[in-house]
């Protein structure tokens, strides 16, 4: 059962997306802002991270950079998918430069997101 960390500050977004993913068989853990997301990500145990980019305190790009910095030299690499409602040209490149593995926009199209997640998770264990 893949374990997903969802980093999202908007309570309704968290509620909606986590419930939808749970219905698809994922185990979901929640973080509500950047620092919490980084802390939980580094604590380990997740197969993939869904990272909202507009977060208070430190945004998703910065949180991703911190996770990648901490992982450097450890051989660990948790896939991170950036989520953003901005959906502007260049956002994808910006997310990849920060260390994200993929990028998706809000409103979430669930099937599209699931495909991207599946690509990064590989065959279901």
């Amino acid at each position, binding site marked *: 059962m893949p374990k997903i960390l969802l980093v999202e*500050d*908007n*309570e*309704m*977004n968290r*509620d*909606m*997306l986590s*419930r*939808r993913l749970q*219905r698809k068989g994922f185990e979901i853990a929640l973080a*509500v*802002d950047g620092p*919490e997301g980084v802390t939980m990500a580094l604590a380990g145990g997740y197969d993939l991270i869904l990272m909202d980019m*507009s*977060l*208070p*305190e430190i*945004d998703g790009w910065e949180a991703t950079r911190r996770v990648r910095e901490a992982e450097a030299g450890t051989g660990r690499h948790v896939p991170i998918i950036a989520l*953003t*409602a*901005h*959906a*502007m*040209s260049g*956002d994808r490149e910006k997310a990849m430069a920060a260390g994200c593995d993929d990028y998706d*926009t*809000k*409103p*979430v199209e*669930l099937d599209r997101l699931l495909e991207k997640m599946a690509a990064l998770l590989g065959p279901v264990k």
Partner: protein
Amino acid sequence: MTGLNTPEAVAELRHELRTPLNLIIGYCEMLLEDAIADDRRTALQQTLTAGRDILERINAAVPSSRGEISDDDFEALRTSLREPHGRIIAATSALLTDCGEIDSEFERDVRRVRSSAERLLTVELSMGRGANHMAITVGHPTFDSGHARVATRPAHILVVDDQEDNRTVLERRLTRQGHTVECVSGGHAALSQLQNGRFDLVLLDVLMPDLDGLAVLERIKANPNTRDIPVIMISALDDVASVVRCIERGAEDHLPKPFDPVILRARIGACLEKKRLRDVELEYLREVGRVIDAATAVEAGTYVGGGLAEVARRGDELGRLARVFDTMADHVRAREMRLKDQVEALRREIAGATLSSRPVSQSEAPSLPTGSLLADRYEIHEEIGSGGMGMVYRALDRELNEQVAIKTLRAEMLREPGLLDRFKSEIRLARHISNKHVVRTHDIGERDGVYYLTMEYVEGITVRSLLDTRGRLAVAPTLAIASQLAQSLVAAHEQGVIHRDIKPQNLLLDANGVLKVMDFGVARLRGVSTGVTEVGQLVGTPQYMAPEQLLGEDFDERVDLFAMGVVLFECLTGRLPFEGTNVMSIIARLMRDEAPSPSSLNPDVSEEVSALVLRLLSKEPTGRPATASDVVRQLSDVS
């Protein structure tokens, strides 16, 4: 500038518009997965379609590549959103009407769809324009390092909510922010918890089954033990009337559910900061109260040293005041102890001398026979003394039924034109002196050509009699006389009255060692104000007179300080500082010689006491202490 003209601002606007759509579309798709009934499926599908229409219109009006948008374009977009928005409102209304009690989760999700649609229409162009700042009011705030954030101190918070998931979310968030949290699921439990614990803040749900939040709020605010705890109401009811009800009942704030975590943090921070400031203010007022209590205790003589130690530890002005106060209180206490010892020594001296009536001498004053009645009011009991002015009697004031002293005045003293009027005005002034070391003058009267003064009657002995009996006094009783005499002069000089004739004969001591100065205001009648009469004859008591007074020069209250110096010199040494066989030789010595040091004549006298007496005896008034208050202060430092 109008509209938005930077890519960042346009991106922020897209974010504000697309975030509610994420919820509308996401919840609808999820609810459709569960919906079985056709009408429900239809309404959900209508909502989803309307949401997707809106998304298309937004993407068309604000494409991802666009770096600017005008006011007109934005208004056109808003107008175009009204129609699909209306469809969402209509469809969700139908869904909510259809909800039964068992569908509470369904109802909650539909309400979220509806509130997201409503939020969509509140998005303003300015939210994009103030990308990094204005956005805080709606969706996803972006903090920068310059943003003024309330530094929240760890607090103990009570969360009251009947929904377990709400409690869990709040507990987690608040704990992560460094607070300690206790959770309860109902109103009664909340009140019980508040009675037992000490909380800095309460987060209180409004709708609860056992006792609703408003009732709990009222009880919290009615209880003196809990009313100062700030309460933030949390509720899905965010209409104006609900919010007003909460505020009117004393809630510090109101947070609509679902709450934005950032706003939650900011409001909790602001609330706790207000409470902290109030706590600081209350503590400050409590400590000011302690200082006032200490001052009252000092006045009552019950102050215990170090009573302000806690306040004195403060680093601010109040702490400094407490430290200074404690030091002063110690000083005052030491001084009082010293004065008490001195008065006790004086009392022993008095007890050793014979308490006797003041000596009676031959006088031309009108004589009043014992038992006679003066002015139909004063019953003469006995003759108790005589002075330069006349006789002194102890009498009973029949009107007030109390003992008084009556001093009759020699007729020839009043012959000088205008003197009687000046004397009367001086007596009027002297009557204003209210001090326990001053014999109170009551009145001046005349009956059958006899002028008389009525005064407070004091049973006691004069310092003159004491010196005549004991020769000289020890240092402690002399200082007791000095302190009390100086205090009486402070009171008189404050009223503008100069005694002009301070001498041992005018200083009366009762059996407890309390000194009272007689004849304030009377000396003017004797002509001692100038020392020398018009015909060059010296009247009064030249041994105690200051040089300027003897020479008829202008003088001020410092003549009383000089006389005090002579009295103290005499008490300490048993002799006068300037002696002579007649008036002229006394004046000559006073002008020519320096007074010997009292310590050279009495080895018990300390150098500092000696120096103070010599300062009082300075020939120039400017060499003396400037005021009687200065003498009081200087006396408090010597022993």
